[in-house]
């Protein structure tokens, strides 16, 4: 029971890390290597609002998420759209976007380093035990998990039940065909990219409640997000959510039952098994 709850809470954290990248890569076809930096920027924003205005990290989402949305939309319009227009095929866009977002990640690290300095940052918020089935868990992790659940539910509902969500899914499946049925592919992509960035930054704000971070830690989050997105299948939002929880449960089970030293190994074992036996990911469709 303890393992299941611990695993689900960790899975919630992983979902917050990976959902944004999934939208950006799955729909906008941008392999965003600055994902982790955007997350850390969200963490810094939450810290700044908490330290400066005593604003709860949960309430700070009201400010962080819209700003991240606009910021990411601008990044897409000015830095990435030219690449999309120039590229002749998916492969070229991937290479170009990897290079470009890798550069953007450096800019983010540099700017955050200049503003906040290079030390470790953390703060204490809701770090109190909360009993679940008579077992204590940190309340801030539970709040982050709820945030992940709400974000996942909203995204899932929006993508599957609304017309604008349908457009995004169409672009995700086949951008050229979507264009033929009068979907503005660039607009839908910009929307997906901005939304992905907003989810990531919001996740960063929630995660900042219980991690110790610094200006250059983003790459760790990017790596985790990449593994989860590929595990889940790049075209399916459900995939990355399920993959996040599978990974969280697997790591917690290994840490509790075998040895905490093997959590990383178990994550990569899972990754290799998926790549070997289901290269399209847990929920990905076979490419025809």
């Amino acid at each position, binding site marked *: 029971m*303890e*393992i299941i709850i*611990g695993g689900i*809470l*960790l899975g919630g*954290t*992983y979902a917050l890390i990976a959902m944004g990248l999934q939208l950006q890569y799955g729909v906008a076809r941008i392999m965003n290597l600055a994902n982790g930096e955007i997350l850390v920027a969200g963490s810094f924003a939450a810290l700044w609002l908490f330290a400066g205005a005593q604003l709860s990290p949960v309430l700070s989402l009201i400010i962080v998420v819209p700003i991240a949305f606009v910021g990411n939309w601008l990044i897409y319009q000015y830095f990435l759209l030219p690449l999309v227009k120039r590229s002749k095929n998916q492969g070229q866009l991937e290479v170009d976007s990897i*290079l470009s977002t*890798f*550069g953007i990640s*450096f800019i983010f*690290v540099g700017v955050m*380093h200049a503003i906040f*300095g*290079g*030390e*470790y*940052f*953390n*703060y*204490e918020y809701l*770090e*109190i*035990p909360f009993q679940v089935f008579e077992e*204590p*868990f*940190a309340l801030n992790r539970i709040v982050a998990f709820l945030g992940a659940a709400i974000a996942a539910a909203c995204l899932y509902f929006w993508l599957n039940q609304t017309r604008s969500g349908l457009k995004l899914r169409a672009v995700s499946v086949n951008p050229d065909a979507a264009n033929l049925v009068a979907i503005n592919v660039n607009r839908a992509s910009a929307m997906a990219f901005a939304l992905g960035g907003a989810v990531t930054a919001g996740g960063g704000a929630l995660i900042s409640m*219980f*991690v*110790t*971070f*610094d*200006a*250059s830690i983003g790459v*760790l989050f990017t790596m*985790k997000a990449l593994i989860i997105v590929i595990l889940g299948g790049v075209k399916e939002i459900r995939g990355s959510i399920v993959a996040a929880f599978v990974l*969280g449960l697997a*790591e*917690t089970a290994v*840490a*509790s039952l075998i*040895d*905490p*030293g093997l*959590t*990383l190994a178990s994550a990569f074992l899972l990754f290799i098994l998926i790549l070997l036996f289901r290269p399209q990911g847990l929920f990905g469709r076979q490419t025809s």
Partner: protein
Amino acid sequence: MFRRTILSTAAAGLVAAALAFQPAQAADTIKIGASAPKTGPLAGGAATTQWPNVRLWVHDVNSRGGLKLKDGQKKIELIEYDDRTTPGEAIKNIQRLATQDKVDFILAPFGTGFTIATAPIFNKLGYPQLAVSAITDKIPALTKRYDNIFFMLGSTTTFTNSVVDILKKMKDDGKIGKRVAMVNVADAFGIELANAARPVFKKAGFEIVYDKSYPLGSQDLSPVIKGAKASNPDAFVAWSYPPDTFALTAQAKINDLNVKAFYTAVATAYPAFKGKFKADAEGILGAGGIDPDTPALKEYFKRHKEVTGKDADYWASAVTYASFQILEQAIEAVGTLDRKAVTEYIKKNEFKTVIGPVKYDNQNSARYWTVGQWQGNKFYGVSSRGRPGAKAIIEKPAWNK
């Protein structure tokens, strides 16, 4: 690999751009080079311990007119590079500082691995290397091979032994039982310390009831603490790095792991630790410690805050500053920029520093603090080699609810 290449290219570009904007250098300055992490896993530690002291020292020397040499007083011109927590980059930085920037002296890099990695290049280029943030059992071998390297924080063996000694004393006094839970970060530092500690704990009559490692950068350490708690220990020891020091302590509090002796290694001495845990930091043991109540250190802490805007840590900060003072006093005593003469001077003389007198014996300073404890608002040294003023150990109270 692909990633690496871009990283280095980008960094090289930045460095080149930074250099291009440097004003023409006047001949009446002393050029000092510094290379330490500003990004990467060790950046947080360096930003607490290393960089503020580099700035403070340059500020202190320049505000009193510079270093007094035989041909007049000269101000310091500082050239700093980011090693991105990559040993290869650190070596390149040292080489570049010596051959391209032609600096007169180089401040030693940050971290054990980086000290060892750059030792050959420091030696080849003939620059004294006054290492501080380096703890290793290889000190005798290194000082034998390189006649220009100096150490100040002791060896892995004394580092672990003094923790065991403290727990043994608490055990002998009847304050704790013999069950120890020990965890370590799965990284060269943590593994080396855990391996060194295991036999010493057993010899001291302890039973290690939980002994696990966790990977560097783990996001969730609650299984580790839950496991440790299930083993019902009397003492908890973690050979940990900064982010996990915070995470383990937070989880111990959440899971109500109450032991009378709670030790976490690096970063326990950071002001941020007290900032986060406040009253709950009381009684927590950690690596380092100093005697912050000496007049020299009181004054140092005050100046550190005024000049850099940050609080100094209670371990290597003051020692780092002391190493710069040693370099400064040696240069002034020699009166020229003759690196060989300065190195020889450092070997033979005693220096007055903020941490008290320092004298190298076979290039190793044998007076240092090993374990500290939060008592009130300060982190006091409770175990030292050759430094006076160790405080009595207190039992860790239960977590505040």
